[in-house]
């Protein structure tokens, strides 16, 4: 298993968490997993949508107190 890149997007409001994820994913090799922690409930909608549109996968979504944690997989064929 490759390491997971962690991103803290707490307190940021949409679309900033999406921008953080996008900018991070664009710099990673395909197959990399990124874990992003957010507090804006809008991310529950926006992060899966952005991943779907851009060809990446959300492997898991966890809610922990006030945090929403997404584990995202960068797919090989996505740019």
């Amino acid at each position: 298993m490759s390491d997971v890149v962690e991103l803290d997007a707490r307190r940021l409001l949409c679309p900033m968490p999406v921008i953080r994820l996008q900018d991070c994913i664009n710099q990673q090799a395909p197959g990399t997993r990124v874990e992003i922690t957010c507090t804006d409930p809008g991310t529950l909608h926006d992060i899966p949508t952005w991943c779907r549109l851009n060809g990446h996968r959300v492997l898991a979504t966890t809610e922990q107190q006030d945090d929403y944690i997404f584990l995202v997989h960068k797919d090989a064929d996505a740019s």
Partner: protein
Amino acid sequence: MTIKAVALISGGLDSLLAAKLIQHQGIEVVGINFFTGFCVEGHTHAIRNREGSRPKRNNALWVAEQLGIKLHIIDVVEEYKNVVINPRHGYGANLNPCLDCKIFMIGKAREWIAQHGFDFIITGEVNGQRPKSQLRRFMPQVAEESGADDLLLRPLCAKNLPPTRPELEGWVDREQLKDFSGRSRKPQMALAAEFGFEDYAQPAGGCCFLTDKTYSVKLQDLWDNRGRREYELDDIMLLKVGRHIRPSSAFKLIIAREEGETRYLSGYRKQFQTIKTVSHGGPLALIEGAQLDPQQLELACAITGRFSQGRDAESVEFEFSDHNQDLHSVNVKPLRPAQIDPEWIIL
């Protein structure tokens, strides 16, 4: 050769339809959306309604999903400051620098297509739709000053304008483009129905907070009191939250209006002096300004108390956290409504 276009996706119906018209002609379309910090997103909603109601969707992502296209959201917060602070063509009714804003965004799209090997740019503009910003004479100006020139196609009103390169080269069939103009939304709604789009975002007086009078007044107040026209992202986010009250030029209070705002403002505790009501239920207040002197602190607490459950009490206890985050206890009688000078309230 595949012809590729980039569409500026604001999240409104017009950008959805413009992109769809071009996609419909077999052209590959990718969306870009610029994040300026002023965009009308579900921010106030996200701050105020954590529990209960459904989180508000991001309209640009929704549009991209309807079209089945990729969407790149580009953070232009830093570069956009110059557009807001020094608009060459001035402001609209409020602090909205619409003409400069369009020139800036289309200029960014022009850079983007050059970097990514795309052929042209699409926007959802319609001539004569809004006063000033989209008058017919501004359309060539935007194309020229942005550097996009004839690579900028406005599919919804293309037939009212001279043919652009995508049309002249035969990449796009001009006949299938539209000749919409004016403020009526009917042609767009009819076209949306034709394409089967429902539940699209309704235009609500502009695509950003800068068209909002109250917001613009708060931004102008910020500049006036700093003596400089400048801002950081946190400043413009905080203008979307709470009651803004400036009882003197030395400080401003940002008082949460409900639980969600208190939670949001709590995230700024380390950057600001804060006042919290201790003896009663009450909001959190951030204080923007230099360290308060005892008199200013008393006034700030008395104002905050006005919005607490102890508003009618003889004395309310507050916890003041100073710039070093040292805590001080303060007891003050809240101001009566008539004691709050309407001039203090920044509307």
